[in-house]
Each structure stands twice: as C-alpha cells, then as structure tokens.
C-alpha cells in the first residue's frame, strides 16, 4: 500500500502550515497555489485508491470473472475421475499473473 508521504511533490520540503510562509505571500497569490496543491493531492489520492482497489480485488477484471465462470471441465472430470492434465494449473497461474 503506497504511503501518502511518497506521493507528496518533492518541492514541498518546508512545512506548508508554518507561520513564516503565511507572511511572505499576498492574499490573492496565496489562494492559487493552495487550489493547485489541492487538485494535485486529490489526483494522487484517486490514483492510490484505484491501485488499492486493483490489489485487493486480485486484478479481476470482468473478463477474468467471465473466465472463472466458463472453466470447462476436462473429459476426465466429466467422466468421474481425477483431473489428468495441467491446463487448470495454467489458468490458476494466469489469474495470479493477472494480479
């Protein structure tokens, strides 16, 4: 899970809330950087959220779900004996790779 610090832009080395910063910038210009920063943070936040979603849901995109439902049983399984080939192992590992 990426930590929020790593997403902060490098330029914000100083503490954005420190008093010194407040004095040195006129009111109108001060408002614009805050808006820009907000937009950037929310963008990063959205990306982080999306990445988290992918990781927690095993990268299953709808097509993979469809694959899961369409697993065709092999001749052996249909006939009533244990699986005799490896195809399901690749399917399994493909799913894992998808992740």
């Amino acid at each position, binding site marked *: 899970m990426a930590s929020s610090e790593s997403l902060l832009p490098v330029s914000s080395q100083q503490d954005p809330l420190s008093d010194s910063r407040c004095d040195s910038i006129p009111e109108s210009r001060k408002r614009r950087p805050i808006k820009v920063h907000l937009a950037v943070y929310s963008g990063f936040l959205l990306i982080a959220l999306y990445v988290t979603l992918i990781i927690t849901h095993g990268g299953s995109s709808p097509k993979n779900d469809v694959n899961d439902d369409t697993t065709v049983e092999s001749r052996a399984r249909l*006939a009533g004996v*244990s699986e005799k080939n490896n195809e399901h192992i690749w399917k399994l590992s493909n799913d894992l790779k998808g992740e």
Partner: protein
Amino acid sequence: AFAWNNTVLSWQRTAFHFQPEKNWMNDPNGPLFYKGWYHFFYQYNPNAAVWGDIVWGHAVSKDLIHWLYLPFAMVPDQWYDANGVWTGSATFLDDGSIVMLYTGSTDKFEQVQNLAYPEDPKDPLLLKWTKYSGNPVLVAPPGIGVKDFRDPTTAWKTSDGKWRITIGSKINRTGVSIIYDTTDFKTYEKHDTLLHQVPNTGMWECIDFYPVSKTKDKGLDTSVNGPDVKHIIKASMDDTRIDHYAIGTYHDSNATWVPDNPSIDVGISTGLRYDYGKFYASKTFYDQHKGRRILWGWIGESDSEAADVQKGWSSVQGIPRTVALDTKTGKNLVQWPVKEIESLRLRRKKFHMKVEPGTVVPVDLGPAAQLDIEAEFKIKKDDLEVVFGDDSVEDDKEFSCETSGGATVRGALGPFGFSVLADQSLSEQTPVYFYVTKGKDSKLKTFFCTDTSRSTIANDVVKPVYGSFVPVLKGEKLTMRILVDHSIVEGFGQGGRTCITSRVYPTKAIYGATKLFLFNNAIDATITASFKVWQMNSAFIRPFSADDLGVPSST
C-alpha cells in the same frame, strides 16, 4: 506456448522407464508375478495422447525393467465398462489362481466393480481374460455417488476365512474407505462401519492397504497380520492429486484401522507422502518370487496437453520401488529402486570433492541424460559449530522446499547437491539438493528438495520446487540417490525416507549438451561430496516377440 519442435520433443522419451510406444497412459493396474513373469497392466488410451477410451494395456518382464508389450488384456466391450475399463487389483486365491477386480465406467458413466479372471491359467503370459457373466458384482451402495465408487484393492484373508476388500469414496468432504467381505468374489457383504475416514480430504481414489513388518525390511503377503505388523493405508487424493499414506494398526475383528499419529492421518496436507513430486495412483503388490513389496507410481506430465499431442505420448511409470517400514524410525516408509535397475549400469566414475561455499563444479563424465548417482555429503564440523554452537543464531522455523525460493536462495548450511540436466551456461538446470537448517532446541533439520523452476526456458510447463523434511539420525551422513532419464528425475533422500519425482523438459540441456554439476550454494559451510555416477543403458522396452519366450529369468 513454447515453440516445441520434434528434435526437442524426441529427446524427452525415456530410456529405462516404462512407457507405451505412443499415446496416453495413467494408473498402474493389477501388478503381479506369475509363472516366471512379472505382469504390469496399465490404464491406456489406444487412440490419443490424452485421457479417454481407456483399456487395460499389458506388459511382461523377467526383472521389472526389460518390459515387453503384449496385446491389451481387457477392452470396453460390455455395458458395464463401455466408457472405460478402469483401475483394479489382482488377488491370488488359496489354489494359486488369480482373480481381478476392476472398476467399469458403464454406458451411463456409473462406476461399478467387475470380476475377471485368466481364460487359460496355464498360460504364463495371461494373454486372455474372461469377464464374469454376472458382472457387475458391486454397485455404489446407498449414500455413495455413482461417480465416487472406484478402484477396488487386492483382497486379504480375514480370521474367519473370508476375503476382504476396500474401495475408496467420499461422503460430503470426508474421504472414506468402504469395506466388503466375500467368499467367492461374486457376492459381497458390505460392512456398516468403515475401515477408515478422514474429514476434509475429499474423494479417495486408488486406495492401497497392506501390512509391513516392524522388524524386517522384507515384504509381507497382503493377508499377513500380527503383533510385529503395521498396516499402511494409502489413498490418492482426487482434489490435490497427491498420494498420501499413514501408518497404523488394523483390527481384523471389526475391520477398522487406527492411525499411529492422527495429526498426520491419511490425506492431511502435512501428512506423509510416498513422493513429494509427481507421483499418483500408486499401487503395491507382494512379489512372492523375491519376498518383497513393490510400489508402482504413475508419473504424469508437467507440460501442456498440446505438447503431449504434438509429441504423441503422455506419461511414464516410476521405476518400481521396494517399499518397507523404516525399522530405524518406525515412523515412515522407505522406498528404493528395485535392485534389478543396476543391470543397466554401464561405465562408472567415482569422485571425492571438497566444495567451498558459493561454488559450482562441472562433473566430467560425458553424456548426462541417463545416469544413476549415489552420493554422500559431509558438512565441515567447524561450520556446523558456527551455526549450532551459537545460541544467537536463531532456528529457521519457516523453511520449506516449496516456498523458500529454490536452490538460488542461500542459507548458512545449504543448499548443496547436484544440478542435473544442465547446460554449460546453467541457463537450464534441475538442482536436487539438501538444505540444512537449525531446528528446535538447536537440532539439525534437513530438507531434501528438487527445484524445477529453471529446468526449462519453456513457459508452458509446470515448474515447482518439490521436497520435504527428511529424517536424519545421529551419526548418519547425508545421502542421496538420483536416477536421471531424459524428462524424468527421481531423487531418493536418506535411503528413500524422502523421495521426489520430477518431470522436466529442457530445450538446451539435451542430447550432447546435457551436463552434470555439483554445487554448494551455502554461505558458511564447506561440504565434502563422495559420489559414484553410472551411465545407464536403455531397457529396450519393445513389443513381445516369439523369441522372447526363451528370455532367461533374472535370477
């Protein structure tokens, strides 16, 4: 998928492991010794290199190694086996005659049990088999699914003179072993109690049930029982395709079996396994000719069905192994390739090498695709002291062959062993190795592993790291034996306490480019290896011909 070509695929055929000339093979069936010949029957598809249309293939040999193909013993020609003549077992009656019980998949795909017997008991080759006119002799009892009722065992005698068999099945998720008594193999009386059952193990296929001696390493006939006997239940787990066994005590009076250690009961994932690699549907028989119990195991493929169809065949059988209780530990079986395999040994080379940490040494012996390797390893005493003498070195609870990254992950005292089927650049290789860790209360804990993850650059191959803990008793050296035969590698750790069979499909380390290396990937330990390597001849497995009738017996 990898672009397989015939040159690479042709190399995969084995030289001394049993396999049909072409097409699909699986379970071993009804193995026996009769009138001077070893008989091997097997599940076989005469039409394709994939499972289906199953008949009973048949082969004979004088020594369990040089096999001769015979005509099919039984084919699906009745309603009760129309969809396949499936797995079964042989029983010798008191008069020396043979009965065969096998599963038929009926015209409605239901699983029933059928009786067959040799048409001419005087024929040592048992070429023709008669199916009992009253088949099927057993159908699935109430509560058992018609597709969960297969693979009857060899029968054994009860104290009141009846014959007894068991058949695996499942009830919900519980694996079960159903018991029947009979006097004539035509009518049966089902027991209300089960021989044994283990929850959450799923369907039990290919059950095997047999006695082992607690005191001698020889085999016992299936009907033997007594105070110096333990009984083995082995079942093939339909869910995981792993053969598990457990050691316990059989009570003839109520036809039940109790495990010595319930925490490693039949089918429990941490339980005992004949083989920690590819080894399934195994079956033993008592070889009355030499007083030993022999274990057959089906070794499936780890490549794709498409590759099997392209090469025209699928699966081999393991080299038949003697199996007995480990009389030193009493807690595991030991398996060893039958002695007759040594008849294939050609040129031998002996080596004695000290190998420093982080070293790979080429073993100069010419072609390395058909080998028999016997090796002993010693770890330099001081290096052991460093690890075991220092309490600050914590024990390595986490190690396991399958999940610890294979032979490239270095530890203080391992891995070390051989890299077989390797090419000169080691871009393809199959390490078979020991990994020694510090176990609880500073005891040495040893693992025997085979790493197939770099056995081929092909991507449509299953390439696990196989293996397990191997018991090493005080004063024992670390020993391993490896049989290399093209696309199969059989490893035997510590005299056969832990065995690993692997299927590998190199694309470069083939023909003359196949090499053998000795390696020591430990960080701290210097090891000394003393080993012998034999080049192995082919077994020339071929169709039976009239002049084979004069084949001299192996004894």
